[in-house]
């Protein structure tokens, strides 16, 4: 007998915690279990409010967390959901991080990227792999998920642009200054694209493996609308990505150009 491929997963908001003035973390109870690899994403829909891609910041049985920055209409609506309200999920989509590489891991998370990297952190620690987590934000008020990371006693170092907490400077600066050339074999990074680009370049120079989680405009999420394509290599964020090896995508539009909703090529600014 025939089965529909994808029904939306129904999820109920169990709690909504304010991380910063712009970022909230929702805890959701799902109507069924889905297996989400660290770095994979979900399409999060609320009828009338739109649907956006989000990489879960925690996955534990039927419970997941979404850490959402309020950048526009849909993210605002979702970040402001109340306990008991419902959202609808499809996915997981994309490839997720490859955590099978041997060696020690350095995680570099800017903004909500710290949250999105947490499932990878937990997985690595569970595997007994030595992992250091660099977390960055503009200032102490804009650090995301740090409370959570402290709660789980994660091995973190913090950087803020204004020095209001931890290292005074950007994540790439922290990386260059404090991480010794040959200590880590692997780097995973999520955050503003310009930041990731710098990390990726540095890794390449140092001969380190670096996995980057890219953001493009995701519409279909299943690989046929072309909205999320990374030019000119034609890799789809939603299928071949969102995680790419830096070596694969340095020299492409990564770090420089993306496309807007109409498919117009525009500059990457952050």
């Amino acid at each position, binding site marked *: 007998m*025939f*089965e*529909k*491929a*994808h*029904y*939306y997963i*129904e999820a109920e908001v169990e709690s909504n915690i304010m991380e910063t003035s712009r970022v909230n973390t929702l805890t959701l109870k799902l*109507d069924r279990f889905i297996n989400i690899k660290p770095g994979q994403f979900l*399409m999060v*829909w609320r*009828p*009338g409010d*739109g*649907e*956006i891609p989000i990489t879960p910041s925690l996955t534990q049985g039927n419970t997941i967390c979404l850490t959402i920055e309020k950048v526009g209409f*849909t993210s605002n609506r979702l970040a402001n959901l109340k306990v008991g309200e*419902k959202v*609808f999920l*499809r996915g997981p989509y994309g490839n997720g991080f490859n955590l099978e590489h041997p060696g020690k891991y350095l995680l570099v998370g800017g903004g909500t990227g710290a949250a999105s990297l947490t499932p990878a952190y937990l997985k690595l620690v569970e595997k007994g792999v030595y992992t250091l987590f660099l977390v960055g934000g503009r200032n102490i008020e804009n650090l995301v998920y740090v409370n959570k990371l402290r709660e789980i006693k994660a091995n973190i170092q913090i950087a803020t642009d204004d020095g209001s907490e931890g290292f005074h400077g950007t994540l790439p600066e922290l990386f260059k200054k404090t991480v010794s050339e040959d200590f880590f074999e692997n780097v995973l990074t999520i955050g503003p694209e310009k930041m990731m680009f710098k990390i990726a370049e540095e890794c390449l120079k140092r001969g380190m493996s670096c996995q980057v989680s890219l953001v493009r405009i995701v*519409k*279909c*999420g*299943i*690989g*046929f*609308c*072309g*909205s999320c*394509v990374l*030019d*000119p*290599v*034609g*890799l*789809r964020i939603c*299928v*071949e990505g969102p995680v790419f090896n830096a070596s694969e995508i340095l020299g492409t539009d990564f770090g420089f150009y993306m*496309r*807007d*909703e*109409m*498919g*117009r*090529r525009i500059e990457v600014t952050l």
Partner: protein
Amino acid sequence: MHPKMSVKLAGLVLRSPLIVASGVLGSSTRLIKKVSENPSVGAVVTKTVTYNPRPGYENPTAIDLGFGFLNAMGLPNPGYLEYRKELSEIKDLAIPLIVSIGPSNSEEAAEMVKALNDVSDGFELNLSCPHAEKLGLEVGSDPEKVRSIVSSARRCTTKPLFVKISPNVTDVVEIARAAVEAGVDAVTAINTMKSIAIDVNAGKPVLSNVYGGLSGKAIHPIAVRIVYELYEAIKIPIVGCGGVYDWRDAVELILAGATAVQIGSAIVYSRSDLNILNEIEKGIIEYLKDKGFNNVMEIVGLAHTS
């Protein structure tokens, strides 16, 4: 390029009858270049461009039903003038580039064709998108509007002109005949079927636009029927499109009367280099060998003979 696969279509010579359908993998001209390097690709149709820029609809814009897909992307595109710039950057494409345009009237058709004429190898008039207001199906279900838009485009180009028609009409032959009389070179059949999916838990239609177009496996038997009907009614070449996932699906459309075949949704099951087209091509070549045919054109419409 395999000698069995080369076809003539509306004045074009294609190295393969397999064409990338409009709208899939979007409008990236960089990607077109990449796709054209796949030797199984005979031609590429661009994403439909319209007179004015369109951001497309809000998400959700697509849903996978397993037996097909529903989408209402809303024809997102930067408008024909902006797109012209992108197209003019493409150099040395090994295959014909067919530009899909979605005019809402004959004036728009004329302007777009004139502006894009030197950056394209042919045009596909999308008169069949089932979810765009004042465009697509809304004009494509009226034979008079079809006639006027096609005539207008025809006057502005000597390049091959395709019209893409919709299954959402009572009489596809009437629409196709209007286009043929107005001077079109070939008919592409079909665009998607107007459909809705409702999520029972949300209690709401999934697509933000409510209505979307059904593509993929589900519409293949409808596409075969329409190609078959057209083949009996019109004398110009037909390009089959709808639910081609494997070589059998493609051969079915060709036997029904299609000279070439477009592939859309099935690229979901493929890498972005469209390796699925290589598999489809291999299957067709094997089939032709098995049945003793020298070229794919020998089997066009063969299901009609008795």
